[in-house]
């Protein structure tokens, strides 16, 4: 074993999350050994006891900030990492747990715990980018394995990741998937959601529920009107649709608030 290694160091960090996004890395069964050969996995507690000190070339950060401790810890990671990539809906918008942002946390805590005083929690679940500078955001709940591999190889080779930024709708059109909204009146967030899943839900005859988060400049108001007028949705249903896995992403948050009376 050489004392010093020249391989770039990768670290994986977890904040408030379900572990699904970092599991995606272990799910790259075909690439895992090659990845492990090309880079040094310096910190990845879910997979290894070994801990190598920073600084790290790339840090993958999963999860959202929901406690005072997390709000502190993320800064240390930034200081110790050349590149920080936020992975998944939790890290890029606050995740499903950001539903707390629309409610009273003390009350939620009382609902779940007999002694809420033992629980330390912030009022809001916020994305990593609200706290530190993030070099790249990878969307999805969970992130797509191929995107993860692309982002890693891009940063390790000093280039920009090549990832889609159009809408899920476009993926449907390209793949010749029948529009669930036009054909069945099924409300779908596809027009305002960033591509990357290859129109997975519409392929399965269901509407997109926005797990990749809002695309750039989404016309959420127009879409909401469509839901109300053409899909026969109630304002409450429209709120629930925008207030899902990416509830705290700005365009989705604002749209859901607009329908609260």
């Amino acid at each position: 074993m050489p004392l010093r290694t020249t391989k770039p160091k990768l670290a994986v960090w977890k904040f408030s999350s379900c572990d699904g996004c970092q599991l995606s890395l272990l799910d790259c069964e075909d690439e895992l050994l090659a990845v492990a050969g090309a880079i040094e996995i310096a910190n990845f507690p879910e997979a290894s006891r070994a801990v190598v000190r920073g600084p790290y070339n790339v840090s993958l950060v999963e999860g959202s900030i929901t406690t005072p401790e997390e709000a502190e810890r993320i800064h240390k990671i930034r200081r110790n990492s050349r590149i920080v990539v936020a992975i998944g809906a939790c890290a890029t918008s606050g995740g499903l747990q950001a539903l707390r942002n629309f409610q009273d946390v003390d009350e939620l805590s009382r609902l779940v715990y007999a002694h809420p005083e033992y629980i330390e929690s912030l009022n809001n679940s916020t994305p990593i980018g609200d706290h530190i500078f993030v070099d790249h955001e990878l969307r999805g709940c969970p992130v797509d394995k191929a995107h993860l591999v692309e982002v890693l190889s891009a940063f390790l080779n000093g280039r920009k990741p090549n990832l889609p930024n159009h809408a899920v709708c476009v993926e449907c059109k390209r793949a010749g998937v029948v529009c669930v909204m036009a054909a069945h009146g099924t409300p779908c967030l596809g027009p305002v959601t960033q591509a990357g899943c290859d129109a997975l839900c519409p392929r399965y005859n269901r509407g997109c529920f926005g797990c990749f988060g809002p695309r750039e400049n989404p016309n959420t108001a127009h879409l909401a009107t469509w839901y109300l007028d053409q899909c026969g949705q109630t304002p409450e249903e429209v709120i629930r649709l925008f207030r899902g896995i990416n509830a705290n992403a700005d365009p989705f948050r604002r749209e859901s608030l607009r329908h609260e009376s």
Partner: protein
Amino acid sequence: MKAKIAEKKTTMSRTIRADYLARVEGEGAMYIRLKGDEVREVKLKIFEPPRFFEGFLRGRSYLEAPDMTARICGICPVAYQMSSVHAMEQIAGVTVDGPIRDLRRLLYCGEWIESHALHIFMLHLPDFLGYESAIHMAPDFKAEVEMALTLKKYGNELMALVGGREIHPINVRVGGFYKAPARDEVRGFRDKLIWGMEASRKAVALVAGLEFPDFEQDYEFVAMRHPDEYPLTEGRLVSSRGLDIDLSEFENEFEEQQVEHSNALHCVHRERGNYFVGPLARYALNYDRLSPAARELAVKGGLDPVVRNPFKSIIVRAVEMFWAYEEALRIVDSYEPPEKPFVETPPRRGTGFGCSEAPRGICWHRYSIDDDGLIIDAKIVPPTSQNQRTIESDLREYVKGRTSLSDDKLQWQCEQAVRNYDPCISCATHFLKLTVDRG
């Protein structure tokens, strides 16, 4: 030198700690305080932040439960999806049968295979062989690691085949699926499953040859039991101490307690305290429901019909992985797509219960919904919160006879004792980190 340390240890107190437990899902720590040979304190701390799922499920549609509860855990999303859809279907007064039920079992087999392969080879085996991780193991055990990755991959592929993707499948809905996979796609999976059965046999032989510490405990095992199947999604709750109840009676027998050192609730039996869920429990209580081939494999792996050494859970997991491949093959070979992929479940006021055998133990859910199908109240008891107290008691008992070990050794072995349970901390808070304090 050795004698000197031993002498010191009888007079001094020390701490063994792991501030961030590795190779478990989620964030936890272990803390053990010793005074001489006496174990003073054992804590499994769970600092995984709470995410308040039960709280924000209120006011959501019953149809959203499978997509929302899946996000409690990226390792066993199907467990949450299955427990929640069964509860909602009970409220609707609907039973799902035939090919839809088979597809659910197929999806769940995929999750068992993926999760068991991950735990056996990547999270647990490195402890037995003295490696920090499977990746560190790979240069010396290349063929084994490659076999493990393929075993795991096929589990994932099965989940993607039925569920649309491996993590947080999108195809599951209350009443069934959005879309049934085509006959040829499913039947085409046959060869991979046959390979998986063979590889699982090798896995059993491999892990059965490991060295196991001499450690047995008299647990109360709790698992589901079905009239004719090894349990996955349906059945009653039974225990090795005579419990035999309907899912709806869970709260009469068990209660969740909050402790100051953990963000995860501890679930205990109201009278008998801690109990054990997961592979050892399932196996002990359903040995007669395993297929003949799986039972034969268990015997070959040196297992008795009841296994009380938690370190041997690695063999039981490998037997269960074989069973899951075999069960998947049975389903695949007879698959004909359902006419309609789901059963209608109109909203109806009521309370329903769902429970399923997640790879790491029972995952129990209760929901109440109103006339419009909005969730009024939700309660979710994940497997790891049920095992927490038993893990602490294992640690206490395990350390007792081994206080002469060095801190490093003791810490590693204690970590291994925790990993016996394949704890999923993300689940438990809706739970791990390690510390041994000799001070």
